[in-house]
């Protein structure tokens, strides 16, 4: 199941050149670009692992692309996203975030129905990725 979250996720995957152009747009706005990755793209999983520190004071997208390629080498079969952080007063938050790498097979989510008192039903989404046994999820 194709995960759609962040910008551009309903479009075909961006090429490296397109990613680079988007990054350059962020840098020209003075935003710091950050690389994050995870195996579990659950919508409620806001905190992905960080690849290095957010990159402040860059002028050219080549620096981000260098880090992204290194991250892909290590976590090529995970989700990787770029997020652009605006540190200016009043914003101080993420302005743009988009997925730049997906695993070959996206495990997707399942819906769990939980019967509670009075035969009411509570619904939960769980990611299949999180079901993998110990030692298989990380590394």
């Amino acid at each position: 199941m194709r995960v759609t979250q962040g910008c551009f996720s309903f479009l075909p995957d961006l090429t490296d050149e397109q990613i680079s152009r988007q990054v350059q747009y962020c840098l020209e706005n003075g935003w710091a670009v950050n690389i994050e990755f995870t195996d579990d793209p659950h919508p409620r999983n806001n905190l992905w692992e960080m690849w290095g520190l957010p990159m402040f004071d860059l002028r050219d997208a080549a620096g981000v692309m260098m880090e992204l390629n290194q991250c892909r080498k290590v976590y090529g079969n995970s989700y990787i996203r770029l997020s652009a952080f605006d540190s200016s007063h009043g914003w101080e938050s993420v302005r743009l975030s988009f997925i730049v790498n997906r695993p070959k097979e996206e495990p997707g989510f399942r819906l769990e129905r939980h019967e509670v008192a009075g035969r009411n039903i509570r619904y939960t989404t769980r990611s299949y990725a999180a079901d993998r046994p110990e030692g298989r999820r990380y590394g």
Partner: protein
Amino acid sequence: MDMDTADMTDTVNLREELEAVGIEEILTQLDRELIGLVPVKTRIREIASLLLIERIRKRLNLTSEVPTLHMSFTGNPGTGKTTVALRIASILHRLGFVRRGQVVSVTRDELVGQYIGHTAPKTKEVLKKAMGGVLFIDEAYYLHRPDNERDYGQEAIEILLQVMESQREDLVVILAGYGDRMDKFFASNPGFRSRIAHHIDFPDYSEPELLAIAELILRDMNYKFSADAREAFIRYITLRKTQPLFSNARSIRNALDRMRLRQANRLVADLDRVLTADDIMSLEASDVLASRVFLKDKPTAGSA
């Protein structure tokens, strides 16, 4: 086939090309603002011409290779290496060989870490900031410490070499340092020497050049020498050059700063005097002659 047709249909007007990129302006500015340094200027003109031709060749599909632009500047302290690096960056930017044209100037401190695992991220961060522009490494020979084989400098060198080779289109590296020590540095890191296309040597300034530099600096700051002071300063330069730790234009700048200090002190000493703009602008012989350089000279002159 394709190339032949390109040759026949496209003619190139060099003058238009040159004017379009506007490097002539930078080169004449370089001539005007930097005194002396004739071999350096010639070399920069050569590089600029080469790049201009390279740019045209690229447009005509005659080449696809990115030329190696890494450089090394060697020369004594105060011969203008940093200033020239800034100009080179703007020339490269105008010609489109670097995308952004910023200069990131670093020394060993900013590249080499203090403990294991600290160096790589530090070096990479500097490299990332310099991407699209010029990375200027001042006193580059400090990166290599032959007396300590566990020094982290070597790690920084390896990362630098790798990026210099694989991302030539993203980054231009300029190494700078004193001649003899840079030679030793290149001798122990042959990888560096072969990855650098342009080795430029900065000669020391002659005495008339140093005087011209002094007058240029003073003019920028709206000061001037009185006729006596100018004579005294010529003697000052001759004496200062023979002393240790002479660092060319930098020494001249420092000397001028001290002379401004003495001039201010002299003016403030007489509070009742009415000053004209000319008084405030001119440095007198006494401001020059109060220098330590002349004091040291006296006993030797007396004994001789």
